[in-house]
């Protein structure tokens, strides 16, 4: 149903898990107490904040559900999610705020 064979899905799961485990184990297990160069730590600090918006932005700008046409309701929902997250620093509040905004906007623009 997903368009991938079961084997492919399991390969994705296993290899992603293996790669993630290697990252988690890296210093604790292998590298030990040797300090990481400052510039490496500095770059790593921005991985999450560099990767997540880069995944989200195209999904917001060209949603699959509207065949890639920019959709006002989804743009509003995205803005509200970001704003609530920044204001409350709370993941759950941001998700709930964003979904509420989405339903309201979809209802009003329908």
């Amino acid at each position, binding site marked *: 149903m*997903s368009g*991938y064979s*079961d084997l492919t*899905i399991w390969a*994705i*799961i296993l*290899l*992603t*898990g293996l*790669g*993630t*485990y290697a*990252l*988690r*184990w*890296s*210093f*604790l*297990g292998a*590298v*030990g*107490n040797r300090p*990481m160069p400052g*510039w490496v*730590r*500095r*770059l790593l*600090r*921005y*991985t*999450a*904040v*560099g*990767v*997540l*918006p*880069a*995944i*989200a*932005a*195209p*999904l*917001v*700008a*060209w949603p699959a*559900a509207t065949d890639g046409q920019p959709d006002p309701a989804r743009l509003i929902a*995205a803005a509200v*999610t*970001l704003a*609530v*997250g920044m204001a409350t*620093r*709370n*993941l*759950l509040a*941001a*998700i709930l705020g*964003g*979904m509420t905004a989405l*339903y309201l906007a979809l209802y009003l623009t329908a």
Partner: protein
Amino acid sequence: MPATAEHISAHDLTPAQRRALGRTPAQALRHGIVQSLPFMLVLVPFGMLFGVVAAEAGLQLSQALGFSVIVLAGASQFTAVQMIMDHAPAAIIILAAVAVNLRMAMYSAALVPWLGEARPRERGLIAYLLIDQTFALSLQHYEKHPRLTVPQRVGYFLGSSIGACLPWIIACALGHVLGRAIPDSLALDFAVPITFLAMIGPMLRTLAHVVAALVAILASLVFAFLPAGTGLFVAAPLAMLSGALVETWTERRRVMRA
């Protein structure tokens, strides 16, 4: 560095510190469970959402569970499932889902001063259970109680992961089962972008983080023409570099002003 703090005598300790030092490893483990329970408020609904989205993407229950047990990382799991829905090539999916977890290497390094002396098997287990929540909670605990023994630290970490990882896995399964009853009109296609955006907001702690996020957004839109999600691998490094540069720049300005 672990401040062994030999120069602090026992009567300088706060009551909480004295209690922490008096715990057996098993009691430290129980303490870790109790202190990680508030995370359930976020992890249970968030995990259920993953289960729902995984079902939506056509994954079987065993595969959704496989993600939660083997990968055990929310943002990474959502990334993989979103890219499965977009029919990206498997190798690109794996690269992106692992890239989201690069910060775990930083967590791993940050724990070395506290847990580096633990047995290899314990360190192996801790590495598996190293997620945002267990890391943040344990590091905070170790810094507050610098004189804990290594077994006490290991106990606390394992306790915190029972309270954080187990509910996540159960919630994912629950979401997958309940998700089949959810109608299309709920626009769950947009649950993943919203989840990502919701994770970004709380991360924007400094100017450098804000700049990194803005560069990530702009670059990902500019490079969206690249095939099958590879634009991400241009946008994310650009964003990380911008964040690091702004951090260097703000630090230099602070030094110059002082």
